């Protein structure tokens, strides 16, 4: 039970940090924020790696494989598309 409570503390503290950090992001960047945060939620790929890499458990591996594919699409696609957007944001002087 202690580990659950401990994890809950971490979860709640991280939520507060998240609220603080994200409320400072200006509206100009809300679309990249949304897609960037979305990419971070692909962190679940770590769990997928553990499931897919553990042997002797027949179909769990296939579930893990599907999980890795899904999460990697989320991570790679999310970060790249965010980068594509942010790359276009330029200051006036830097232009031309």
């Amino acid at each position, binding site marked *: 039970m202690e580990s659950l409570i401990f*994890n809950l503390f971490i979860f709640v503290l991280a939520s507060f940090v998240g609220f603080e950090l994200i409320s400072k992001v200006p509206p100009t960047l809300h679309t990249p924020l*949304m897609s960037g945060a979305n990419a971070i939620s692909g962190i679940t790929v770590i769990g*997928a790696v553990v499931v897919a890499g*553990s042997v002797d458990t027949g179909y769990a591996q296939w579930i893990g494989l599907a999980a890795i594919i899904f999460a990697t699409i989320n991570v790679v696609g999310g*970060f790249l598309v965010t980068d594509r957007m942010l790359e276009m944001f330029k200051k006036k002087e830097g232009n031309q």
Partner: protein
Amino acid sequence: MSQFLSDAFLPHVPTFIQLFYLLAMSLFIFGIKKLSSPATARSGNQMAAMGMLLGVAVTLFDQEILTFEFIIAGMAVGGILGFFAARSVAMTAMPEMVAIFNGFGGGASALVAWGEFSRADISLWAGQDLATAGLGIMIGSLTFTGSFIAFGKLQGFISGRPVTFPGQNYFNLLLTGVILILVGWFVTDPSNLTIFWSIFGLSLLLGVFTVLPIGGADMPVVISLLNSYSGLAASMAGFVISNNLLIISGALVGAAGLILTNIMCKAMNRTLGNVLFGAFGGGGEARAAEETGGKSVNKTTADDVAIQCSYADKVVIVPGYGLAVAQAQHILKEVAGMLEKKGVTVKYGIHPVAGRMPGHMNVLLAEADVPYDQLYDMDQINPEFKSTDVVLVIGANDVVNPAAKTSPGSPIYGMPILDVEQARRSIVFKRSLSPGFAGIDNELFYADDNQMFFGDAKQSLQDLAVAIKELE
């Protein structure tokens, strides 16, 4: 990967993995922090991506991992798909893209919980592990189907109109209750696979039924909320496998999704409950168009607009999604450049929900090389309208409708708007007098200080560019 390490080092591997997770988490937090300014945002995103890479790389040293074929295959397939999707998507289709990625993320979390459940010896699992696994599957699954329904609605595969049946909200509430009860039952009887599969199946259904009754225009809110859910799902998966990095990252994303959802609801003058259960959109349009009868508008021409803008001190441009639909961002940027050469100060005033999701218009203008320091948020630009000579409203409607401030009966009453009517002159570029998204007539069009420049946005701006050139 741990088999490549020396035996003496092996006992310390878990500690090192945790330390690297700590580093990865710090990179996420710094990355998001850097998103607070356009100047540092790109490196912030790259930092977060580095954190992700680091997190995945050290996980490969986990002693539980013995084979790499599936991992490599999965990452190759997912990486290639993600890469091409991200490279090829049009900037106007960003809401759809986020919806898809989000669906995959939620789906992955559900699969992790399922995989963990089927590979582990569940007799060793405590009740809390089972509960979080059940909740993880629930949230992940409904995020998965919900996101794809949202995608379908945005793409037009599924009708954008709210699809409802009587008692729908009660049905969804009941379904949610049933799933939660099943999760409780699952905790007490984890070997009963019928319960397990029911949680899975009903949660997938819940995602469909929750999003179907919501109108297409509200999809960005839904996506943002589902984004928050996919963060929660990742956190739940973190609880299941006791991984702090997952718990923390998931919580960060959950918070981001909630804040953005809240911002969108405020900007649209709606409550989240109204968005989710109100079946808004469709109906109402017919009524508004008829009321335009007796009132008259001032029409204007390209030459006239050119003269007014060229001799102004300050021009503010208010772009709406109609501008992007007409693909007129580039020509708009040219017109703005011509005016600046004449010494006119040009600024862009952007409503929080201009475009199809918050901040979308900024991305679309950035794509057309409009420098971000010319883009002003609603709160920054509103005090400036009083000292503005000419406002050009292009492809926007409801966000400049003074009815939001003046007529308590209006559906948009209370919605924050751009105070365009305070400028000395406003010029609205529009095809016709038809009402906007919310289906409400716009008083601004009939104001004395307002002029209407009828026509397609792109064509009108091209004419304007020619007219400005001719003045020289």
